[in-house]
C-alpha cells in the first residue's frame, strides 16, 4: 500500500545563542494508512521536533525546516509536500487531515473555555457545521472517547476534569474531524499507570473504528511493544534503527536500541545496578563526529569515531545505522568479553567518567576505553 505520509531527509535546525542546533538531522520514514508507527528515543533525540515539523508547528524563527526536506502527505487530491505548502494551506491540513495530541493534558486545554467549545471550534472551522450540529457532534465525540455523561461534561471547564479525562478530551478534539494521521506526542507520560493503559487501549480501539494512522512518540518501550506495528529508534536527530516491533524488540541490531532495551528494569531480576547507557544525549549544537553514538557505545572503535555510518538496509523494512552491519564479528567479540551493555559496563561509564559528548578530548577517550575493553 502507498504510504500516507512520507518524510524524507527532514532537517529542522534552530538558531540558538550557542550556535546552530541541528535538532532533526536527516530523518526519513513512512507511515502507512491504518498502522501505528512508534518513534522512540531518549529526551533530546529529536522525536518531538520531528512531529512538530510534520505539523509545521516549529516556531520560526528560531527554527527552520531546511530546504531539501520533504514531508509528503497523500490525500484524495494527491500528494502535497507539507514542508513547502503555504501557511494557509497548512491550516486546512492541521487538525483536519493530521491531528496531534500532546504530552501534558493538564496544560494542553485552554482553561478559560468549556471543553465542548474547544471541540466545536475545530468542527466549525474544518467541517463548517452549524453551532447546534457541532455541539451534537462534540457530545458524540466525548461519548466516543469514553467520557461518562457527555451531555453534562460538554459544558464543563478543563479544571473540572481529571488528567485522564482531559487527555480523553484532547483525543476527542484531535479526532473530531476524522484525521487520516494522528500524531500522539507522549500521550501517556504525564498520566499514572492505570490511566495510561486506558488511554492506550482507547487509542487502539479508536484506530480500529476510525482507521487512521497513528504516529506514537514515546520514550516508554513498553508502550511501543503494546501498541505499535513498526518502530523507528531515534538518536541525536537521526534514525538509528527501523523495523517491525517484533523484530526490533527480539533482535535489536543497533547498539543504541540494545542499550535502550537493556535499560528497562525487569521484574524478578535482582541485579544491584541497572544496565544503563552511560552519559547523556549530546547537545544538538555540537553533535560528535563519526557515529553520533560512538562515545556512549561499548562496541565503538576508531572507525565509528571518525566516519558516520549510513542507515544500512538489513532486511525487508529493517534498517540500522551502525558500522556493525559491516563488521558483525566485532559485536560477538565484545559481547564475549564484556557482555555489551551490562551493569558492569555501566559502572565504567557513569557520568563522571564519560565526558560531555562533543568535548574536544572525545577521540582520546574512545581509545582509552578501547584499551579498557
Amino acid at each position, binding site marked *: 500500500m502507498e504510504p500516507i505520509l512520507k518524510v524524507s531527509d527532514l532537517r529542522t535546525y534552530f538558531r540558538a545563542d550557542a550556535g546552530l542546533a541541528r535538532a532533526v538531522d536527516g530523518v526519513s520514514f513512512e507511515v502507512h494508512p491504518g498502522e501505528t508507527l512508534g518513534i522512540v528515543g531518549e529526551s533530546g533525540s529529536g522525536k518531538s521536533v520531528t512531529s512538530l515539523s510534520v505539523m509545521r508547528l516549529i516556531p520560526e524563527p528560531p527554527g527552520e525546516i531546511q530546504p531539501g526536506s520533504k514531508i509528503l502527505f497523500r490525500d484524495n487530491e494527491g500528494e502535497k509536500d507539507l514542508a513547502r505548502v503555504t501557511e494557509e494551506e*497548512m491550516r486546512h491540513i492541521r487538525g483536519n487531515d493530521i491531528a496531534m495530541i500532546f504530552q501534558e493534558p493538564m496544560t494542553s486545554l485552554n482553561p478559560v473555555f468549556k471543553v465542548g467549545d474547544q471541540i466545536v471550534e475545530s468542527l466549525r472551522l474544518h467541517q463548517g457545521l452549524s453551532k447546534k450540529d457541532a455541539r451534537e457532534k462534540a457530545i458524540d465525540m466525548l461519548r466516543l472517547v469514553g467520557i461518562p455523561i457527555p451531555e453534562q461534561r460538554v459544558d464543563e471547564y478543563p479544571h473540572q476534569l481529571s488528567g485522564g479525562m482531559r487527555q480523553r478530551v*484532547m483525543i476527542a478534539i484531535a479526532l473530531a474531524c476524522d484525521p487520516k494521521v494522528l500524531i500522539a506526542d507522549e500521550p501517556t507520560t504525564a498520566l499514572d499507570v492505570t490511566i495510561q493503559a486506558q488511554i492506550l487501549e482507547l487509542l487502539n480501539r479508536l484506530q480500529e473504528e476510525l482507521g487512521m494512522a497513528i504516529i506514537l512518540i514515546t520514550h516508554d518501550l513498553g508502550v511501543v511493544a503494546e501498541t505499535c506495528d513498526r518502530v523507528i529508534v531515534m538518536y541525536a536527530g537521526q534514525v538509528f534503527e527501523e523495523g517491525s516491533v517484533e523484530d526490533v524488540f527480539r533482535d535489536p541490531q543497533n547498539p543504541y536500541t540494545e542499550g535502550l532495551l537493556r535499560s528497562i528494569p525487569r521484574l524478578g531480576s535482582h541485579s544491584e545496578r541497572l544496565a544503563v547507557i552511560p552519559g547523556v544525549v549530546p547537545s544538538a549544537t555540537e553533535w560528535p563526529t563519526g557515529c553520533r553514538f560512538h562515545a556512549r557505545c561499548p562496541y565503538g572503535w576508531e572507525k565509528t569515531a571518525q566516519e558516520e555510518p549510513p542507515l544500512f538496509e538489513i532486511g525487508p523494512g529493517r534498517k540500522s545505522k551502525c558500522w556493525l552491519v559491516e563488521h558483525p564479528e566485532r559485536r560477538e567479540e565484545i559481547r564475549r568479553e564484556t557482555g555489551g551493555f551490562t551493569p558492569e559496563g555501566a559502572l565504567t561509564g557513569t557520568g563522571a567518567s564519560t565526558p560531555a559528548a562533543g568535548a574536544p578530548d572525545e577521540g582520546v577517550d574512545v581509545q582509552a576505553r578501547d584499551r579498557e575493553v
Partner: protein
Amino acid sequence: MISYLIRRLLGAIPLLLGILTLIFFIINIAPGDPTARYFNPNVAPEVIEQMRRNLGLDQPLHIQYFRWVTSFARGDFGNSFGQMRPISEILPTVLWNTIQLMLISIIIIFVVGMLIGMYQAVRQYSASDNFLTVAALFFYSMPSFWFALMLILIFSLKASQWDWPIQFPASQMTSVGYEFMAPGEKIWDRLMHLAMPAIALGIGSAAGIARYMRGSMLEVIHQDYIRTARAKGLSERVVVFKHALRNALIPIITLLGLYLPVLLSGSVVVETIFAWPGMGRLIVDAIFQRDYPLVMATSFVAATLVVVGNLLADVLYAVVDPRIRTE
C-alpha cells in the same frame, strides 16, 4: 455571586468609616483655619469668632466628629464652608465631569495599552518591539503635568499658529456658544475638550499596561494550550485574540482596580492644568481652604471609587476566569 457582592459591599462600610475618621482628624489637626481668608484689619475679631461659632468650629474636636458622623449617616454632607452652599448641590456635577474624564482615560489606557502590549508580544525582539519598549518607558517616566503642557503647546498653541487642520482646545469643558449647539455638535465639542486631558491623564498608565500586557501575553503565548489551538488549524488571529488574549487578561484585570485611585490623584494635576471643573480641582481647593465638610465629602467619593474599582476587578475576574467562579 450576588450574595458575594453584597457581602463585599457591607464589608466595605467599616473600611470607609475608618478611612474617613482618619482623614477627619488629620485635616483638623493640620494648621490653618477655614475662616483664615476673612482675616483682615477691617474685620473685627468678634466677627471671626461669631463665624467660627456659626460653622461649629468652637466645639471640641470629638463633638465635631460626632456631629459629622451623625449627619453623614443620614446622608447629609452639610454645607461647603468655601462656597457657602450645600455639598449635595456641588458634588454631582463635579463628579460627573471627572467620571467623563476618567472613563475616556481608562478606555485609552486599556485599549491602547493592551493593543500595544499584544503587538509587542507577537513581534517579540523585533525592531518595532524594541522601539515601543523605549517609547513606553519614556511615557511611563514623564510626569503627566509635563506631558499636559507639551500637548497644549503642540496641539493647541502651535497647531493654531501653524493652521493645522485639527486643533484641540487648551482648557475648559466647552467652547464658547456651547449652549447654542445641536446635540451632535455638543458631543463632538465635549470629546474635543476631553481628548487632551484624557490623553495626558492616561498615557503614563497606558505605557505601564503595555508593559504588563507584553509580559502577560508572552507568558501565555508559550503555553501548551496555545500550541493545541495552533494544532487545530486556527488562524494566528484567532489564536492570539481568542485563545491567548482571554488568558492574558486575567493578571491585567487586577490593575483596573489599582489604576482608579491613580487616575483620581492624577486628575488633580491634569484638571488644574486644563481648567477642568472636576473632583481633582475640587479636592485641592477644599484642602487649601480648610473646607472641612467638602474635604470629607470628596474623600468619601474617592474612597468609594477605590472600593468599587476593586470590586469591579473581582467581578471581572470571575467573568474571565471560570476557575475563580466555582470557588
